[in-house]
Protein backbone atom coordinates (compact mmCIF):
# COMPACT_ATOMS: atom_id res chain seq x y z
CA UNK A 1 0.00 0.00 0.00
CA UNK A 2 1.40 3.39 -0.92
CA UNK A 3 0.46 7.00 -1.70
CA UNK A 4 -2.37 8.97 -0.18
CA UNK A 5 -4.33 5.88 0.78
CA UNK A 6 -1.40 4.67 2.88
CA UNK A 7 -0.84 8.09 4.38
CA UNK A 8 -4.46 8.29 5.51
CA UNK A 9 -4.31 5.07 7.50
CA UNK A 10 -5.71 5.72 10.99
CA UNK A 11 -6.33 9.36 10.11
CA UNK A 12 -9.65 10.96 10.88
CA UNK A 13 -10.47 12.00 7.34
CA UNK A 14 -9.98 11.03 3.71
CA UNK A 15 -10.10 7.65 2.05
CA UNK A 16 -8.47 4.64 3.63
CA UNK A 17 -8.11 1.01 2.69
CA UNK A 18 -10.40 -1.28 4.63
CA UNK A 19 -8.32 -3.33 7.07
CA UNK A 20 -7.57 -6.95 6.32
CA UNK A 21 -7.96 -8.33 9.80
CA UNK A 22 -6.57 -5.28 11.47
CA UNK A 23 -9.48 -4.90 13.79
CA UNK A 24 -10.56 -1.34 13.05
CA UNK A 25 -12.99 -0.04 15.65
CA UNK A 26 -16.26 1.44 14.41
CA UNK A 27 -18.21 3.48 16.91
CA UNK A 28 -21.81 2.35 17.36
CA UNK A 29 -23.18 3.96 20.50
CA UNK A 30 -22.40 5.37 23.93
CA UNK A 31 -24.35 5.46 27.17
CA UNK A 32 -23.45 7.62 30.13
CA UNK A 33 -24.60 6.36 33.50
CA UNK A 34 -26.48 8.65 35.82
CA UNK A 35 -27.69 6.69 38.84
CA UNK A 36 -28.97 3.90 36.61
CA UNK A 37 -29.91 0.49 37.98
CA UNK A 38 -29.06 -1.07 34.61
CA UNK A 39 -27.60 -0.01 31.29
CA UNK A 40 -28.77 -2.02 28.30
CA UNK A 41 -27.67 -2.11 24.69
CA UNK A 42 -30.65 -3.42 22.73
CA UNK A 43 -29.65 -2.26 19.28
CA UNK A 44 -26.53 -2.28 17.18
CA UNK A 45 -25.60 -5.88 17.97
CA UNK A 46 -26.27 -7.98 14.90
CA UNK A 47 -24.45 -9.55 11.97
CA UNK A 48 -22.88 -6.30 10.76
CA UNK A 49 -19.67 -7.11 12.62
CA UNK A 50 -18.13 -10.39 13.66
CA UNK A 51 -16.77 -8.88 16.88
CA UNK A 52 -18.16 -6.26 19.21
CA UNK A 53 -16.31 -4.46 21.96
CA UNK A 54 -17.60 -2.54 24.94
CA UNK A 55 -15.33 -0.10 26.75
CA UNK A 56 -15.97 0.95 30.34
CA UNK A 57 -14.59 4.26 31.43
CA UNK A 58 -14.65 5.29 35.07
CA UNK A 59 -17.69 3.30 36.09
CA UNK A 60 -18.51 4.59 39.56
CA UNK A 61 -20.83 2.57 41.80
CA UNK A 62 -23.34 4.15 44.13
CA UNK A 63 -22.66 1.48 46.75
CA UNK A 64 -19.28 0.71 48.23
CA UNK A 65 -18.00 -2.75 47.33
CA UNK A 66 -20.34 -3.34 44.40
CA UNK A 67 -19.30 -5.61 41.54
CA UNK A 68 -19.83 -4.72 37.88
CA UNK A 69 -21.70 -7.43 35.96
CA UNK A 70 -23.22 -8.22 32.58
CA UNK A 71 -25.66 -10.62 30.99
CA UNK A 72 -26.74 -11.52 27.46
CA UNK A 73 -30.14 -11.58 25.80
CA UNK A 74 -31.45 -13.52 22.81
CA UNK A 75 -34.80 -11.69 22.72
CA UNK A 76 -33.74 -8.07 22.27
CA UNK A 77 -33.66 -7.40 25.96
CA UNK A 78 -36.89 -8.98 27.17
CA UNK A 79 -34.80 -11.38 29.26
CA UNK A 80 -31.15 -11.35 30.25
CA UNK A 81 -30.57 -14.96 31.19
CA UNK A 82 -28.35 -16.72 28.68
CA UNK A 83 -26.63 -19.82 30.05
CA UNK A 84 -22.89 -19.20 30.49
CA UNK A 85 -19.76 -21.07 31.51
CA UNK A 86 -16.86 -18.80 32.43
CA UNK A 87 -13.52 -18.29 34.15
CA UNK A 88 -12.44 -15.42 36.36
CA UNK A 89 -8.84 -14.75 37.39
CA UNK A 90 -7.52 -11.67 39.07
CA UNK A 91 -4.38 -9.95 40.33
CA UNK A 92 -4.70 -7.96 43.52
CA UNK A 93 -2.41 -5.57 45.37
CA UNK A 94 -3.14 -3.32 48.30
CA UNK A 95 -1.97 0.26 48.61
CA UNK A 96 -0.51 -0.71 51.98
CA UNK A 97 1.59 -3.37 50.23
CA UNK A 98 0.48 -5.99 52.75
CA UNK A 99 -1.23 -8.30 50.24
CA UNK A 100 -0.57 -9.21 46.61
CA UNK A 101 -1.83 -12.25 44.73
CA UNK A 102 -2.83 -13.87 41.48
CA UNK A 103 -5.83 -16.15 41.92
CA UNK A 104 -8.66 -18.02 40.27
CA UNK A 105 -11.94 -16.90 41.81
CA UNK A 106 -14.47 -19.69 42.07
CA UNK A 107 -17.00 -17.29 43.57
CA UNK A 108 -17.06 -15.18 40.43
CA UNK A 109 -17.16 -17.74 37.65
CA UNK A 110 -20.21 -19.51 36.23
CA UNK A 111 -20.88 -23.13 35.29
CA UNK A 112 -23.94 -23.24 33.09
CA UNK A 113 -25.32 -20.35 35.09
CA UNK A 114 -27.93 -17.94 33.79
CA UNK A 115 -27.09 -15.19 36.25
CA UNK A 116 -25.02 -12.08 35.59
CA UNK A 117 -21.30 -12.57 35.03
CA UNK A 118 -19.03 -10.62 37.34
CA UNK A 119 -16.42 -8.48 35.59
CA UNK A 120 -14.65 -6.89 38.58
CA UNK A 121 -13.91 -7.04 42.25
CA UNK A 122 -15.64 -5.02 44.95
CA UNK A 123 -15.29 -1.53 43.55
CA UNK A 124 -15.15 1.36 45.98
CA UNK A 125 -17.56 4.28 45.87
CA UNK A 126 -15.32 7.04 47.17
CA UNK A 127 -15.41 10.07 44.93
CA UNK A 128 -12.20 9.13 43.10
CA UNK A 129 -12.81 5.38 42.86
CA UNK A 130 -13.92 3.68 39.66
CA UNK A 131 -13.28 0.85 37.24
CA UNK A 132 -12.28 0.83 33.57
CA UNK A 133 -11.77 -1.87 30.98
CA UNK A 134 -13.37 -3.71 28.10
CA UNK A 135 -15.54 -6.65 27.08
CA UNK A 136 -15.26 -8.29 23.67
CA UNK A 137 -17.90 -10.62 22.30
CA UNK A 138 -17.37 -12.74 19.21
CA UNK A 139 -19.89 -13.42 16.48
CA UNK A 140 -23.03 -12.76 18.55
CA UNK A 141 -25.35 -13.28 15.60
CA UNK A 142 -24.23 -16.83 14.95
CA UNK A 143 -27.00 -19.41 15.06
CA UNK A 144 -24.47 -22.24 14.85
CA UNK A 145 -21.91 -21.62 17.55
CA UNK A 146 -21.76 -20.59 21.20
CA UNK A 147 -20.86 -16.92 21.89
CA UNK A 148 -17.34 -16.46 23.24
CA UNK A 149 -16.36 -13.38 25.19
CA UNK A 150 -13.23 -11.89 26.79
CA UNK A 151 -13.08 -9.12 29.37
CA UNK A 152 -10.28 -7.25 31.09
CA UNK A 153 -10.85 -4.59 33.72
CA UNK A 154 -9.00 -2.75 36.42
CA UNK A 155 -10.89 -1.56 39.44
CA UNK A 156 -10.13 0.51 42.50
CA UNK A 157 -11.08 -2.09 45.11
CA UNK A 158 -13.07 -0.88 48.09
CA UNK A 159 -10.25 -1.85 50.45
CA UNK A 160 -7.92 0.59 48.68
CA UNK A 161 -6.31 -1.87 46.31
CA UNK A 162 -5.81 -2.43 42.61
CA UNK A 163 -7.84 -5.35 41.24
CA UNK A 164 -7.15 -6.51 37.69
CA UNK A 165 -9.54 -9.16 36.41
CA UNK A 166 -9.52 -11.36 33.32
CA UNK A 167 -12.85 -12.96 32.52
CA UNK A 168 -13.66 -15.23 29.64
CA UNK A 169 -16.34 -17.70 28.72
CA UNK A 170 -19.15 -18.41 26.35
CA UNK A 171 -22.85 -17.90 26.16
CA UNK A 172 -23.89 -21.52 25.71
CA UNK A 173 -26.58 -20.82 23.17
CA UNK A 174 -26.94 -21.16 19.43
CA UNK A 175 -29.54 -18.40 19.36
CA UNK A 176 -28.31 -15.01 18.21
CA UNK A 177 -27.36 -12.67 21.04
CA UNK A 178 -28.83 -9.26 20.28
CA UNK A 179 -28.68 -7.33 23.55
CA UNK A 180 -26.41 -6.93 26.57
CA UNK A 181 -27.14 -5.48 29.97
CA UNK A 182 -24.75 -4.13 32.61
CA UNK A 183 -25.44 -3.49 36.28
CA UNK A 184 -23.83 -3.42 39.71
CA UNK A 185 -24.26 -6.31 42.12
CA UNK A 186 -25.93 -3.88 44.49
CA UNK A 187 -27.01 -0.29 44.08
CA UNK A 188 -26.87 1.82 40.96
CA UNK A 189 -24.27 2.68 38.38
CA UNK A 190 -23.73 6.18 39.65
CA UNK A 191 -21.58 7.47 36.79
CA UNK A 192 -19.37 6.36 33.92
CA UNK A 193 -19.41 5.76 30.17
CA UNK A 194 -19.98 2.54 28.25
CA UNK A 195 -19.21 2.60 24.53
CA UNK A 196 -20.07 -0.05 21.95
CA UNK A 197 -17.83 -0.60 18.94
CA UNK A 198 -17.98 -3.01 16.02
CA UNK A 199 -14.65 -4.46 14.98
CA UNK A 200 -13.88 -4.82 11.32
CA UNK A 201 -11.84 -7.99 10.94
Amino acid at each position, binding site marked *: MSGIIAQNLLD*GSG*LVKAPEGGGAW*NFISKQTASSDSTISFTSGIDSTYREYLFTFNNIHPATDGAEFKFNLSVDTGSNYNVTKTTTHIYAFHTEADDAASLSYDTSRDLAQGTGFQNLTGDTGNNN*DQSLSGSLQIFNPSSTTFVKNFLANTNSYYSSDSSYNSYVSGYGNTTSAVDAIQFKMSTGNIDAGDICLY*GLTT
Partner: protein
Amino acid sequence: MTGIISDNVGRPSGLIKAASGGGGVWTKIKEITASSDSTISFVDGTSDVVLDSTYPIYVFKFNIHPSADARLQVNFRDGGSSYDATKTSTFWEASHAEDEGRAEVGYVTDYDLAQSTSVQALAYVSNGNEEVSAGTLHLFSPSSTTFVKHYICRVSCHHSMPGSIDTFIAGYCNVTAAIDGVQFSMSSGNIDAGTIKMYGIGDS
Protein backbone atom coordinates in the same frame (compact mmCIF):
# COMPACT_ATOMS: atom_id res chain seq x y z
CA MET B 1 -21.84 8.92 1.57
CA THR B 2 -22.89 6.97 -1.53
CA GLY B 3 -21.57 4.59 -4.16
CA ILE B 4 -18.75 2.09 -3.81
CA ILE B 5 -17.19 3.89 -0.86
CA SER B 6 -20.44 3.59 1.05
CA ASP B 7 -20.93 -0.03 0.01
CA ASN B 8 -17.54 -0.98 1.40
CA VAL B 9 -18.25 0.11 4.97
CA GLY B 10 -17.63 -2.80 7.30
CA ARG B 11 -15.98 -4.91 4.61
CA PRO B 12 -12.45 -6.31 4.83
CA SER B 13 -11.34 -5.07 1.41
CA GLY B 14 -11.58 -2.08 -0.89
CA LEU B 15 -11.53 1.59 -0.06
CA ILE B 16 -13.56 3.14 2.70
CA LYS B 17 -14.02 6.68 3.95
CA ALA B 18 -12.22 7.35 7.21
CA ALA B 19 -14.63 8.39 9.92
CA SER B 20 -14.65 12.14 10.33
CA GLY B 21 -12.85 13.45 13.35
CA GLY B 22 -11.77 10.01 14.41
CA GLY B 23 -15.38 8.89 14.72
CA GLY B 24 -14.64 6.23 17.30
CA VAL B 25 -11.95 4.58 15.23
CA TRP B 26 -8.37 4.64 16.35
CA THR B 27 -6.67 7.90 15.52
CA LYS B 28 -2.91 7.82 15.29
CA ILE B 29 -1.57 10.74 17.27
CA LYS B 30 2.16 10.27 17.27
CA GLU B 31 4.83 7.74 16.33
CA ILE B 32 8.33 7.95 17.75
CA THR B 33 11.17 5.83 16.45
CA ALA B 34 13.83 5.10 19.06
CA SER B 35 17.48 5.70 18.34
CA SER B 36 19.57 5.12 21.44
CA ASP B 37 17.19 7.23 23.52
CA SER B 38 17.34 7.25 27.30
CA THR B 39 13.67 8.20 27.41
CA ILE B 40 10.76 8.59 25.02
CA SER B 41 8.08 11.00 26.16
CA PHE B 42 4.60 11.91 24.98
CA VAL B 43 3.57 15.28 26.42
CA ASP B 44 0.29 17.02 25.76
CA GLY B 45 0.76 20.06 23.58
CA THR B 46 4.28 19.13 22.56
CA SER B 47 5.36 17.82 19.16
CA ASP B 48 1.78 17.34 17.99
CA VAL B 49 0.89 15.15 20.97
CA VAL B 50 -2.67 15.34 22.27
CA LEU B 51 -3.15 13.84 25.72
CA ASP B 52 -6.23 15.51 27.14
CA SER B 53 -10.00 15.17 27.05
CA THR B 54 -10.06 14.79 23.27
CA TYR B 55 -10.16 11.02 23.66
CA PRO B 56 -11.46 8.96 26.60
CA ILE B 57 -8.93 6.19 25.99
CA TYR B 58 -5.34 6.43 24.82
CA VAL B 59 -3.36 3.45 23.57
CA PHE B 60 0.41 3.06 23.23
CA LYS B 61 1.67 0.26 21.00
CA PHE B 62 5.36 -0.49 21.19
CA ASN B 63 8.12 -2.78 20.06
CA ILE B 64 11.39 -2.17 21.84
CA HIS B 65 14.97 -3.28 21.39
CA PRO B 66 17.26 -2.20 24.24
CA SER B 67 20.97 -1.51 24.40
CA ALA B 68 21.22 -3.76 27.48
CA ASP B 69 19.20 -6.61 28.98
CA ALA B 70 16.74 -4.57 30.97
CA ARG B 71 13.14 -3.84 31.78
CA LEU B 72 10.93 -1.48 29.78
CA GLN B 73 9.21 0.87 32.18
CA VAL B 74 6.75 3.74 32.13
CA ASN B 75 5.80 6.67 34.31
CA PHE B 76 3.17 9.38 34.24
CA ARG B 77 3.22 13.14 34.72
CA ASP B 78 0.49 14.66 36.88
CA GLY B 79 1.55 18.29 36.97
CA GLY B 80 4.92 19.97 36.77
CA SER B 81 7.69 18.44 34.74
CA SER B 82 8.42 15.30 36.76
CA TYR B 83 7.12 11.84 35.91
CA ASP B 84 6.17 10.83 39.41
CA ALA B 85 2.44 10.15 39.69
CA THR B 86 1.60 7.95 42.67
CA LYS B 87 0.60 4.47 41.52
CA THR B 88 -0.75 1.19 42.90
CA SER B 89 -0.55 -1.75 40.53
CA THR B 90 -0.34 -5.49 39.92
CA PHE B 91 2.18 -7.42 37.84
CA TRP B 92 1.92 -11.07 36.84
CA GLU B 93 3.38 -13.17 34.10
CA ALA B 94 3.43 -16.46 32.23
CA SER B 95 6.84 -17.71 31.18
CA HIS B 96 8.27 -20.51 29.09
CA ALA B 97 11.95 -21.15 28.43
CA GLU B 98 13.22 -22.21 25.03
CA ASP B 99 14.81 -25.28 26.66
CA GLU B 100 11.55 -26.12 28.51
CA GLY B 101 13.36 -25.57 31.80
CA ARG B 102 10.72 -23.14 32.95
CA ALA B 103 7.00 -23.01 32.32
CA GLU B 104 4.94 -21.24 34.93
CA VAL B 105 2.50 -18.50 35.77
CA GLY B 106 2.73 -16.30 38.82
CA TYR B 107 2.47 -12.95 40.52
CA VAL B 108 5.68 -10.88 40.62
CA THR B 109 5.99 -8.81 43.78
CA ASP B 110 9.24 -7.24 42.60
CA TYR B 111 7.51 -5.19 39.94
CA ASP B 112 4.16 -4.20 41.35
CA LEU B 113 3.73 -0.81 43.02
CA ALA B 114 2.04 0.27 46.25
CA GLN B 115 1.48 4.01 46.39
CA SER B 116 4.81 4.51 44.70
CA THR B 117 6.01 7.34 42.51
CA SER B 118 8.66 5.11 40.94
CA VAL B 119 8.54 3.84 37.39
CA GLN B 120 6.14 1.04 36.49
CA ALA B 121 7.89 -2.01 35.02
CA LEU B 122 6.16 -3.32 31.91
CA ALA B 123 8.39 -5.88 30.28
CA TYR B 124 11.67 -7.70 30.12
CA VAL B 125 13.71 -7.06 27.02
CA SER B 126 16.93 -8.79 26.03
CA ASN B 127 19.34 -7.15 23.66
CA GLY B 128 20.41 -9.84 21.19
CA ASN B 129 20.34 -8.53 17.67
CA GLU B 130 17.04 -10.17 16.81
CA GLU B 131 15.43 -9.74 20.23
CA VAL B 132 12.53 -7.41 20.86
CA SER B 133 9.49 -7.11 23.10
CA ALA B 134 6.12 -5.80 21.95
CA GLY B 135 2.91 -4.85 23.67
CA THR B 136 0.08 -2.45 24.32
CA LEU B 137 -0.65 -0.01 27.12
CA HIS B 138 -4.16 1.42 27.59
CA LEU B 139 -4.62 4.60 29.60
CA PHE B 140 -8.17 5.55 30.57
CA SER B 141 -9.44 9.12 30.90
CA PRO B 142 -6.11 10.79 31.68
CA SER B 143 -7.74 14.21 31.80
CA SER B 144 -10.23 13.34 34.53
CA THR B 145 -9.96 15.54 37.58
CA THR B 146 -12.47 13.40 39.47
CA PHE B 147 -11.23 9.82 39.24
CA VAL B 148 -7.94 7.96 39.49
CA LYS B 149 -6.36 7.02 36.14
CA HIS B 150 -6.54 3.32 35.30
CA TYR B 151 -3.98 1.68 33.02
CA ILE B 152 -3.78 -1.85 31.62
CA CYS B 153 -0.82 -3.32 29.78
CA ARG B 154 0.19 -6.64 28.24
CA VAL B 155 3.55 -7.40 26.63
CA SER B 156 5.07 -10.32 24.76
CA CYS B 157 8.68 -10.36 25.92
CA HIS B 158 11.81 -11.98 24.62
CA HIS B 159 13.61 -12.71 27.88
CA SER B 160 17.30 -13.41 28.18
CA MET B 161 16.76 -16.85 29.83
CA PRO B 162 16.12 -17.28 26.76
CA GLY B 163 12.41 -17.66 26.50
CA SER B 164 9.03 -16.04 26.21
CA ILE B 165 7.34 -14.10 28.99
CA ASP B 166 3.83 -12.71 28.74
CA THR B 167 3.48 -9.84 31.22
CA PHE B 168 0.17 -8.48 32.55
CA ILE B 169 0.25 -5.14 34.33
CA ALA B 170 -2.63 -3.03 35.59
CA GLY B 171 -3.14 -0.32 38.13
CA TYR B 172 -4.10 3.26 38.68
CA CYS B 173 -2.42 6.59 39.10
CA ASN B 174 -3.86 7.50 42.46
CA VAL B 175 -4.27 11.16 41.66
CA THR B 176 -7.18 13.34 40.65
CA ALA B 177 -4.93 15.73 38.77
CA ALA B 178 -4.90 15.24 35.02
CA ILE B 179 -2.16 13.10 33.51
CA ASP B 180 -0.58 15.11 30.69
CA GLY B 181 2.59 13.17 29.99
CA VAL B 182 3.73 9.56 29.58
CA GLN B 183 7.39 8.60 29.54
CA PHE B 184 9.01 5.28 28.58
CA SER B 185 12.53 4.28 29.60
CA MET B 186 14.72 1.25 30.31
CA SER B 187 15.83 0.14 33.77
CA SER B 188 19.39 0.34 32.45
CA GLY B 189 20.88 1.47 29.17
CA ASN B 190 18.93 3.02 26.34
CA ILE B 191 16.00 2.27 24.11
CA ASP B 192 18.25 1.29 21.26
CA ALA B 193 15.64 0.83 18.55
CA GLY B 194 11.95 0.28 18.00
CA THR B 195 8.82 2.36 17.79
CA ILE B 196 6.16 3.61 20.14
CA LYS B 197 2.87 4.63 18.56
CA MET B 198 0.24 6.63 20.39
CA TYR B 199 -3.45 6.42 19.47
CA GLY B 200 -6.63 8.03 20.69
CA ILE B 201 -9.93 6.14 20.71
CA GLY B 202 -12.97 8.31 20.20
CA ASP B 203 -16.42 7.83 21.66
CA SER B 204 -18.70 9.54 19.20
